[in-house]
């Protein structure tokens, strides 16, 4: 396991400090989940697997480095997956990484669901540590921000 390059690579890639901080905050939380998954055990709740957390971490890393707007938070979906949430004005967006590996983006205007679509992420390797960035896909493979691309398709 190698050390994470969170703090040394971030500032060069992201221009908005608030976005950088938001991504770093959720990545720190994902690392905490990875290191101590027992904290997410509760009644009738399936905690995210290490593989799901890994995928979420790699996605956060790529989105941070592609200068994507920062998320509000990352939460467990309660069914073994993880969800990034973002709010901008009346638009609420989510990226859900399900336990099955399926990734879906949803966009709400107020509480009205106006877009949802599956997203394909770069291949990752189950069991890899989220700290090891040596095999990461280039950020460009995500075509920039998933949040922004969905908004362009359905809002603007």
């Amino acid at each position, binding site marked *: 396991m190698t050390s994470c390059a969170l703090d040394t690579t971030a500032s060069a890639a992201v221009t908005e400090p608030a976005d950088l901080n938001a991504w770093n905050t959720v990545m720190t939380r994902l690392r905490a989940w990875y290191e101590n998954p027992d904290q997410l055990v509760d*009644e*009738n709740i399936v905690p995210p697997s290490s593989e799901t957390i890994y995928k979420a971490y790699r996605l956060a890393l790529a989105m941070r480095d592609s200068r994507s707007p920062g998320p*509000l938070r990352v939460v*467990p979906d*309660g069914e073994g997956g993880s*969800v990034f949430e973002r709010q901008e004005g009346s638009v609420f967006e989510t990226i859900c990484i399900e336990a099955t590996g399926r990734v879906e983006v949803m966009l709400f205007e107020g*509480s009205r*669901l106006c877009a949802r679509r599956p997203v394909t992420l770069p291949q990752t390797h189950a069991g890899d540590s989220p700290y090891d960035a040596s095999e990461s896909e280039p950020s460009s493979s995500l075509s920039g921000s998933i949040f922004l691309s969905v908004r362009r398709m359905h809002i603007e």
Partner: protein
Amino acid sequence: MRSAGGSETIDDNELLYRRIPASMNWYDPAVDPRPSPRAFNPREDDLTGLSLYRAKYKSLEEVARGLPGKRYYVAVLRAGDLRAAAIEVVQRPPDDPSHCEISNLTYANRKENTPLEIQVRLAHELCLRVEGPFG
């Protein structure tokens, strides 16, 4: 007052409680004064509706009682607000008047569009406040 099925009718003015595990990060007042819609995602045992408790019969502390050593928040909703938003709330099962359910939000339909919209509406528009954490 009881319905034909034996359940007690829930008054529009009644407050309803939904327990939120603190460890899930579904509510963090430092991030957002509103809970995440995930706090209202039905779980496997929500077969006939999303579980809520009635303030008329249970205190916040009682509702917040979960696993030992865990902390919980409690989201507060009003029955009439839910009904005004076309969200059905019914007392169920008949032998537990303290419990009720949002019947159009179940584990089976949780990923359909309208139930997803209900989850967002509960979290972002209809949640009056969040109390806690308790435990």
